[in-house]
């Protein structure tokens, strides 16, 4: 472990990526993630083999990522909601061509130009693929700057392990917040060699000619390819699901929240415990695959669930799918860039407790 430093979330993510061997960054300015490309533009030229390039658009940036990933590099791009929408075509191609890369989305309020304030309203887009076609991405949702650092580094390993893009989904707050962080010493795990990368080929050079491609014109071959992708997703669902549980063992009321909202929910949970209401918290760390297991377990004994989001209610669908009608699932959300308060969440649970009596 390195020393503790005070860092902004966005800068910490950028440094963590470099520490994890990311040498290529392509991006386009958009608030509230600008510190990532700015940091990269400062640092990359000082790192051996490092390259920062400001693209002409998010569309170009994600396609530069495609080219760099196809050439075997560790590569990242970052943006915020409107820009992530523009990247969706490219992300779909990257998934189809089975290329590893890391994408950061510092979510802001929408729809449209929306606001520049924090939001969680890109949950559907992130967890259901986002672009066209049948696919998934691993979605990691940090709730502190320290966790953002750790998840960013893991994102590169996971991307390489599965040859699939990994999305680190923060919100404006995670990106802008300054917190003490320890930059962990990055140790690269054993990963498969990128023998598929397009780096130059001639007959007899020891590998097949590389073709980085997502076109499968024969429907039966495409179906086979999609089944292969989904076999990978099945492994991810089994092995990569992450969450944090607090005080759920005896909880009557379980709050489900991620990212910044989970921090506020944690404070609310403590307040409620002080007041004698048995509240607990489940914080999904992977939004996809979604942690069904702890929710199903809690549904055995809890009286009800409250999903809290900075949206009009998106993750709540996944909570309801996991609870499967066993217990009521309520929703509380603020949107447009407004962050829910501890008091608001406490009130929601108090009302639920009254109703449950």
């Amino acid at each position, binding site marked *: 472990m390195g020393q503790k430093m005070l860092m902004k979330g966005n800068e910490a993510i950028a440094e963590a990526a470099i520490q994890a061997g990311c040498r290529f960054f392509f991006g386009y300015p958009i608030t509230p993630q600008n510190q990532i490309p700015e940091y990269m533009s400062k640092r990359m030229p000082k790192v051996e083999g490092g390259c920062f390039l400001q693209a002409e658009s998010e569309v170009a940036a994600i396609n530069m990522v495609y080219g760099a990933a196809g*050439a075997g590099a560790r590569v990242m791009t970052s943006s915020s909601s409107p820009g992530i929408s523009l990247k969706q075509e490219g992300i779909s191609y990257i998934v189809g061509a089975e290329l590893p890369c890391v994408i950061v989305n510092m979510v802001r309020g929408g729809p449209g130009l929306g606001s520049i304030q924090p939001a969680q309203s890109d949950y559907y887009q992130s967890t259901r693929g986002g672009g066209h076609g049948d696919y998934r991405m691993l979605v990691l949702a940090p709730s502190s700057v320290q966790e953002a650092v750790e998840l960013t580094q893991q994102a590169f390993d996971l991307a390489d392990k599965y040859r699939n893009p990994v999305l680190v989904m923060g919100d404006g707050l995670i990106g802008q917040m300054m917190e003490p962080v320890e930059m962990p010493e990055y140790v690269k795990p054993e990963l498969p060699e990128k023998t598929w990368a397009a780096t130059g080929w001639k007959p007899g050079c020891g590998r097949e000619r590389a*073709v980085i491609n997502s076109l499968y014109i024969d429907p039966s071959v495409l179906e086979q390819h999609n089944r292969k992708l989904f076999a990978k997703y099945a492994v991810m669902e089994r092995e990569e699901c992450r969450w944090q549980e607090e005080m759920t063992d005896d909880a009557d009321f379980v709050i489900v929240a991620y990212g910044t909202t989970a921090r506020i929910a944690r404070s609310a949970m403590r307040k409620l415990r002080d007041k004698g209401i048995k509240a607990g918290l489940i914080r999904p760390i992977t939004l996809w695959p979604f942690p069904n297991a702890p929710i199903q377990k809690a549904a055995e004994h809890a009286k009800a669930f409250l999903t809290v989001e900075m949206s009009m209610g998106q993750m709540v669908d996944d909570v309801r799918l996991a609870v499967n009608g066993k217990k009521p699932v309520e929703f509380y959300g603020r949107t447009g860039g407004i962050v829910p308060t501890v008091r608001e969440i406490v009130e929601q649970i108090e009302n639920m407790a009254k109703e449950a009596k």
Partner: protein
Amino acid sequence: MAVVYEKTKLLTDKPLHYCPGCTHGIIHRLVAEALDELGVQDKTIGVAPVGCAVFAYDYFNCDMMEAAHGRAPAVATGCKRVNPNNVVFTYQGDGDLASIGAAEITHAATRGENITVIFVNNAIYGMTGGQMAPTTLPGQVTTTSPYGRDTNHCGYPIRVSEMLATLDGPAYIARVSVHDVKHIMEAKKAIKKAFQLQIEGKGFTMVEVLSSCPTNWGMTPQEALKWLQENMIPQYPLGVKKEKEAE
């Protein structure tokens, strides 16, 4: 017996899917021969477009990437930045490059990205069945300009080579044609030169190749070549549009 002609090893044995008389096939051969003669097969990465040449990754016998519609210059940029010693080229149609990909080509050019672009201009969207392209000639009938391209309604064709030649980034931009043997030889020279300049690290190079689409022009291959010569060349004059002075 002396070998008079041999298929270049930069093309695979896969039969081309192009329509009879389509000049995409000739352009493939010119690109492949140029790379072969420069001895860079083991360094070359090609980027195929979305368009009739989408399967170029099956034909060029080198590492290949297939890009989204119009994005080949961005893909090539990412690839080239990772391995600057690779010889990286894109092969793009006029819909791909001049319409949906207008931003990507312009910025790759102005960055002086050290890649080579083979720009196949056939004044039409071939693959999707002959719709109007940004390069369609005034008055030209296509499936989405059934009364002929009306410039009052949808503007004028883009002369991409001249437009990009106004930028400081490009090292070499030329427009050539493949409608007869003489022009095919000149096209080959220009393509080889573009690759040579890339190998020397001179920066962005592009060769625009006027090409025929007999199928969607509704002509025989011979008529198409004649139409190209008589109608496209006046609109798109051949020649070198930009050549950076040797530094």
